[in-house]
């Protein structure tokens, strides 16, 4: 057993660690010891790390092969960009217009979703379908169930979602500009940025929830193509969204986004994302997600609502992608739909697979490795620059063939490790109330 020295509580060591890392990098950056180019690379790596953490939530911990991460990245990016651009540059009549719009969507969605959840529309549909299967074929039952659920759902969305959204919009438009306008513009910009990141991540999570509702009841492979399909729909939307909101500029690329991202922003967001995810996984709700990943039917038999667990993991994973997207938008100050194709959803997959499926440490390491490798390869002589995208799938293939669980597998470092649990205090002597002991024979390996 350990010596008498009491080890520091994990949160203290972790806090110190992050403090040191954060400050070190901040010093390195501000002193210019790393070129601006590499600063951006490291920040990008951290941002992709957040997105990869989200994907790991969906796939590594949640067991869902979802290919739409780039779509949510894009939702977070575009929506947060709309908010800050409006405040700083202005494109709608009111500087708080972008914020009002996105928050209205957020609140509207949340309330509509909460309503749909509490009225259990998804369950309504399934119960209707199963119940109707007594009289109808599966197809007929599905038709009725889906159409009823659709009608009810649409009504709820319009009435509750639309109504609340409108209220929020009016509120924000009137309150925010004078309230924040009183502050010096540098401060108000940071406040707006924080709100933009939050609103964008929230929107991404909510849209994720919405598509999770119908899609998560599908089996594995169908979920894969359904999310792929959604990714394509999102891309088409981004490409054409300028017909709705001209400043998005669609395929011409959105410009004029204030470049508000600095290392502290990125670092703090990453730390928060990491801590939240770690605490989530090592809690009872987190365990249900893992259990559902391992065996959804067995989990149901244990009283766990598999659908709820999966939906939670999926929504959180989408929100993470949205946060990363928001940071991305304000790092590069330029958004083009080509960054959000479904093919780009493969990037976080590669990072996750490379670093370690089911490992938070692995997600971060994988993200950094990927970004540094890909960008670093840019320094190759011009003739070989195109080879970057040839090398990266080859790496993926090699990893899948020889170490499919990734570099770290599912192991973690430092405070991300599962908390140690003290063994049971042995009650001496009594074997009363114990189950008949196993004989030696059945202890032997027999699988």
């Amino acid at each position: 057993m350990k010596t008498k020295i009491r080890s520091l509580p994990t949160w203290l060591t972790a806090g110190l660690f992050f403090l040191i890392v954060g400050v070190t990098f901040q010093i390195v950056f501000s002193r210019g010891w790393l070129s601006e180019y590499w600063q951006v690379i490291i920040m990008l790596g951290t941002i992709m790390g957040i997105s990869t953490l989200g994907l790991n939530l969906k796939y590594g911990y949640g067991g869902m092969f979802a290919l739409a991460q780039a779509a949510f990245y894009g939702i977070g990016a575009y929506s947060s960009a709309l908010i800050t651009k409006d405040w700083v540059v202005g494109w709608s009549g009111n500087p708080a217009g972008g914020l009002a719009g996105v928050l209205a969507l957020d609140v509207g969605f949340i309330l509509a979703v909460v309503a749909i959840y509490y009225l259990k529309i998804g369950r309504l549909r399934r119960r209707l379908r199963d119940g109707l299967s007594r009289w109808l074929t599966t197809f007929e039952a599905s038709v009725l169930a889906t159409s009823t659920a659709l009608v009810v759902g649409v009504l709820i969305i319009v009435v509750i979602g639309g109504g609340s959204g409108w209220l929020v919009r009016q509120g924000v438009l009137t309150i925010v500009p004078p309230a924040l306008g009183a502050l010096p513009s540098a401060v108000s910009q940071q406040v707006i940025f924080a709100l933009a990141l939050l609103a964008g991540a929230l929107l991404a999570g909510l849209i994720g929830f919405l598509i999770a509702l119908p899609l998560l009841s599908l089996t594995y492979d169908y979920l894969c193509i359904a999310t792929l399909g959604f990714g394509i729909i999102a891309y088409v939307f981004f490409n054409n969204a300028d017909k709705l909101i001209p400043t998005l500029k669609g395929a011409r690329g959105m410009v004029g986004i204030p470049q508000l991202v600095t290392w502290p922003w990125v670092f703090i967001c990453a730390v928060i994302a990491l801590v939240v995810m770690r605490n989530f996984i090592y809690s009872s709700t987190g365990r249900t997600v893992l259990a559902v990943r391992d065996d959804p039917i067995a989990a149901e038999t244990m009283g766990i609502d598999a659908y709820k667990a999966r939906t939670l993991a999926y929504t959180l994973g989408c929100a993470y992608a949205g946060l990363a997207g928001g940071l991305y938008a304000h790092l590069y100050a330029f958004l083009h739909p080509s960054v959000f194709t479904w093919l780009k959803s493969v990037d976080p997959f590669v990072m996750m697979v490379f670093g370690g499926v089911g490992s938070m440490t692995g997600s971060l390491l994988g993200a950094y490795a990927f970004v540094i490798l890909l960008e670093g390869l840019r320094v190759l002589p011009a003739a070989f620059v195109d080879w970057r995208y040839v090398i990266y799938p080859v790496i993926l293939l090699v990893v899948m063939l020889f170490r499919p669980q990734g570099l770290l597998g599912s192991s973690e470092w430092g405070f991300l490790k599962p908390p140690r649990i003290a063994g049971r205090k042995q009650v001496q002597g009594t074997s009363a109330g114990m189950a008949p002991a196993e004989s030696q024979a059945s202890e032997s390996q027999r699988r």
Partner: protein
Amino acid sequence: MSQSIQNPSTSSNSIVLKIDGLTKFFGGLRAVHNFNIEIKKGELVGLIGPNGAGKTTIFNMITGIYPVSAGHIIFKGQEITGIPAHEITQLGIGRTFQKIRIFPNLTVLDNVRVAYHPHARYNLFDGILRSQRFSHGEREMTEKAQEFLGVFGMDQHQDTLASNLPYGAQRRLEIARALATEPDLLLLDEPAAGMNPREIIELMELIHFIRDRFDLTIFLIEHQMRVVMGICEWLTVLDFGEILARGTPEEIRNNPKVIEAYLGTQATRMVA
């Protein structure tokens, strides 16, 4: 955890599970037809029959994994037909599977802790923010799980990954885990599968032990005649989805229709 709904009587005569006219169609294939049964509290009842007779299908319908085509399932006086599986478990039905279905990538301790989730005293946000409620609730769950494992002699394995356990231990874990959900009715699907005679005797002892210790009613599917004849109080025989016979093990053993179903008409002539 038991919710007495309409029948608060705890007399040993109360009916725990009542099934009526249970039928299951898979498209055009009729897998189960008109199954019915009444199981009283504390009984140890068996469901036997040739392979493919529909036994697991019946269990799947009781636990809510398959939708029911027709019929009613009434548990402790409450109709549970069509209720989602996780709610049925929370009402008090636990179950093991023919092919062991523990959570392979979770530790032994976590396998059991999952069972306590529906009654966790903290929610998602407590977990993320690591509030007081979380620490207390988590400690409570952990101690409860450890004590439970202790009853089955598995607490020293609490940190072992479930997939690393030997087969026999996995089976025990699966049963222990099902019991952690504090059921009133336990469904065991071929618990003796893959066991040697020595282990089968231990399993039979274990089943008797848990029935008494946890005040259970047990309904089990089994092929091993030793188990069936040894511990079941009475049996229902299923063939091609329909009830073939019902009675005590002795009665069933000598029933010509049952012999025929298992062995074919040749054997009946030989026995007669």
